[in-house]
């Protein structure tokens, strides 16, 4: 059984596969994918997660809305959240951090940086 259950919330299948492919290099991780915020909340109600990686720009429910719901829910508010966006803009970063994101990654995501942030938040060795 995997020690860490990671949830990737991303509408682009290419990005989902890319993030998932990079994270599979870590030991003892299980990866679950969600296509938007609504799908992510459904997955969150079904199983426990150690970390969430969420894109900001998504249809139905964006990453920031998902983050605010997670942070206001006592069941999920301890789960570390990494926000991913295409824009390198400071405003989005600030919004995400204000809402309680633990880290922020800009696209194009560098695998080394992604693994560093994830292992840092999960306190595991890469």
């Amino acid at each position: 059984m995997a020690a860490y259950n990671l949830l990737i919330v991303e509408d682009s299948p290419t990005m989902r596969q890319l993030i998932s492919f990079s994270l599979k290099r870590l030991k003892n991780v299980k990866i679950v994918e969600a296509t938007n915020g609504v799908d992510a909340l459904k997955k969150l109600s079904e199983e426990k997660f150690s970390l969430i990686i969420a894109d900001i720009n998504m249809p139905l429910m964006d990453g920031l809305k998902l983050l605010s719901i997670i942070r206001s829910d006592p069941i999920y508010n301890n789960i570390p959240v990494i926000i991913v966006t295409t824009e390198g803009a400071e405003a989005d970063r600030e919004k995400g951090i204000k809402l309680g994101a633990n880290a922020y990654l800009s696209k194009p995501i560098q695998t080394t940086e992604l693994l560093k942030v994830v292992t840092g938040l999960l306190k595991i060795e890469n």
Partner: protein
Amino acid sequence: MDKNESDITRKAEEFLKVFRKGEEFTQELLKENERLRYRTVQFEDQVKALQRRSEGPEIENLKDTISHLEEEKTALINRYKAVEDENKDFAARYLEVEDENNNLANLYVASYQLHSTLDFTEVLTIVVEIIINLIGTDEFGIMLIDEMTNELSFVASEGIDSIKNKKIKIGDGIIGNVVKTGENYFEEDLEIFHPASDLHPIVCIPLKIKDYIIGVIAIFSLMEQKNKKLTKVDYELLSMLAGHAATAIFSSKLYSQSERKLSTIQGFIDLLSNKNK
């Protein structure tokens, strides 16, 4: 005896007492002197013996051992330095391999996604996603050649609303020339890049199936976080895109055409079979 005589006698006795003590002290000094002379002779003998030993073969052996150990120490220090340098090389090589691994993963995902569907619109969406997410650009377009007019027109684009309806003749400008020559175009120095026109790309790669060119991918700017630089993997990704995207776009186009033809034929067959009934 009168008083004077007794005083003299007492003084003489006292003098004799002091004289005897002096004699005893002198005797002791003589003895000590003798003992010290004996010790001096002993030390002199010891020094002579030590001198004899220091010139002997034992010392020579020890000296040899010391010099041998010194050489060994220097060799070990040099070996340690060499190992340290080797470790640094290994660490640098490890990082290179790690980078290469990440790049291969990106290339794998990109090519896997490109060939995951035969739907023309989906293929274009995937190419757009790869360009945005893996290369990091927000102003670009995919242009295909219209075989009837021999002109290039945009079939998908991002952030170039002002030019997305423009058409380019083969051989015209940088984009038209890329189609004509089949060569990739990369603007040399993005730090000092000033576009000569709104159709002046920083990167333009032909979509090629062997020597057959079906269109181009034209990139007009990079995202801020790219710091006006294309990395090694960007060039690799773009080169890979040139081949894989072309094949994926071409196959999906052929597939949709054949699907359309199939449904037309099926329509005729249905019509004919209904007439025959």
